[in-house]
């Protein structure tokens, strides 16, 4: 059992098997408050990594730091994606390098219809799934294509946010609570999709409050607490370790 963060282990991994996405000693601030406090981890190609932790642990902040949104502000650290240094990029450059983030509050763009929201994702290369194919995955979106995106129901908006990410040909998908507000049937549907794209080689980081569900899907898991990694290991390890689950995940 390895609860305490062990950077040396990570570092070794990085040396021996240069990971697909690797985050090294990342620190980030919102103004004066220190939120991401030195995080290092690796994700291998085709892996699903679950990023878990309580409210306010810093999961969203970590994802946003990786996606280079500028808030929180990353003050130190390196992020490498497929041998490209993300840490020296702006968010749109990171996105064109193959990063896709589904943000936690969905961020459907007001004033644009469903279809325009999707078209928007296909303006900058590389282009991924066709819009037709996305409508097949989410028929509800097809039905609502002319509707303004923000008037969709909560769940529909979530679908749109995921579809928007898939509309781009990304290498790493960062999902921030993708199941939130979705009916159980749809969650099943999305899970299937995640497995499907994983088979096609997609790398995914999944932040989810429904830890059990996430762990069943994930290969590996990281647990965050107050901005630091308190666990890094396989998903199975977490599921087996009751203490760990009780302390950080309350399950």
């Amino acid at each position, binding site marked *: 059992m390895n609860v305490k963060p062990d950077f040396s282990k990570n570092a070794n991994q990085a040396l021996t098997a240069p990971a697909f996405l690797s985050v090294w000693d990342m620190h980030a601030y919102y103004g004066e408050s220190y939120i991401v406090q030195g995080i290092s981890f690796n994700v291998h190609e085709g892996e699903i990594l679950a990023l878990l932790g309580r409210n306010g642990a810093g999961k969203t902040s970590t994802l946003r730091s990786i996606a280079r949104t500028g808030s929180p502000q990353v003050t130190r650290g390196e992020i490498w994606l497929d041998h490209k240094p993300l840490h020296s990029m702006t968010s749109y450059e990171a996105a064109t390098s193959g990063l896709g983030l589904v943000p936690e509050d969905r961020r459907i*763009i007001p*004033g644009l219809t469903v279809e325009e929201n999707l*078209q928007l994702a296909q*303006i900058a290369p590389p282009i991924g799934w066709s819009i037709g194919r996305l409508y097949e995955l989410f028929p509800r979106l097809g039905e609502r294509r002319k509707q303004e995106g923000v008037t969709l129901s909560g769940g529909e908006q979530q679908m749109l946010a995921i579809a928007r990410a898939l509309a781009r040909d990304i290498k790493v998908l960062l999902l921030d609570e993708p199941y939130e507000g979705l009916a159980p049937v749809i969650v099943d549907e999305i899970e299937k999709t995640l497995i499907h794209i994983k088979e096609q080689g997609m790398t995914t980081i999944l932040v989810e409050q429904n830890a059990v569900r996430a762990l069943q899907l994930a290969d590996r898991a990281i647990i965050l607490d107050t901005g630091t990694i308190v666990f890094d290991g396989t998903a199975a390890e977490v599921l087996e370790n009751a203490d760990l689950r009780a302390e950080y995940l309350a399950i």
Partner: protein
Amino acid sequence: MDAFLLQILNGLDKGSAYALIALGLTLIFGTLGVVNFAHGALFMIGAFCAVTLERLLTLSFETIDPTKTDFLGNPLKVKTPYVESWFGPETGAAIIDWSVPLALIFAIPVMLAIGYAMERGLIKHFYKRPHADQILVTFGLAIVLQEVVKYFFGANPIQTPPPEALRGSVDLGQMIGFQANAIIYPIWRLIYFFFAVAVIGGVFAFLQFTTFGMVVRAGMADRETVGLLGINIDRRFTIMFGIAAAVAGLAGVMYGPLNPPNYHMGMDFLVLSFVVVVVGGMGSLPGAVLAGFLLGILESFASTTWATTTLPGINQIIIYLVAIIILLTRPRGLMGRKGVMED
């Protein structure tokens, strides 16, 4: 009937000036979400591009004419523009005569450059700042631009006449069967109208038939998300700003021959163009154009003797009165989109 037509014509013309300025303003204000109090100054700078070009073309060398004297009794210095000595007096004079149309070509790069510099150097940092801060900084900029122009060109208006061939007026009334002198219309005003239509059409086409407009609108609504979709929104904002500046500038160049430019012409138009944009509805290009023409025509009607005798002073307040009525009856102006600058 003819009086009626006449005022519509006048209104269309005034309206095209409003619409052109409002068009540029709404690109910045309604699309980029920046309350740009310096937009009037851009219009003014456009007009002064024409003045500058004319000054450049008439750069002269002096020869002394001993037969005449100046106001102090000294021998008179006669100025001959270089262009006249280079291209011969006739061609040279023609070039100077056509300086306003030539200024259009001159103004485009100048205005694009100014727009670029302004956006990259200043506005860029203010997209996320409150509107109040935008007002303060752009107002400061407007004052600075204005004062700089005043420093070099003075406070008096400066004539930028249209080419000789395009001066004077045509009797439109006679062409369509009214008596002579019923509907007289200056040629340059007709040109201005068609110019406005062309520019407006061009901008519409650009924003309608490309995704550019959509991306910029999206970027204004949520910069971050658009960035996460791999789009370099900054560059598009810059382009948009450049276009808006160029539209304002060209409107200024073309406006010069109608009324001689002075350094505060921008401020004179500023308030009015904000009213036009808002009455048209935030974020709506057609709205801005429609409101521009509507207010122009109403203003023309309000200035008829009939209107001013029935309601004294109506010509002073008509625009504001109409603006109030429209905003109270239509919550988002004529064609405003929901959620744009409503808070």
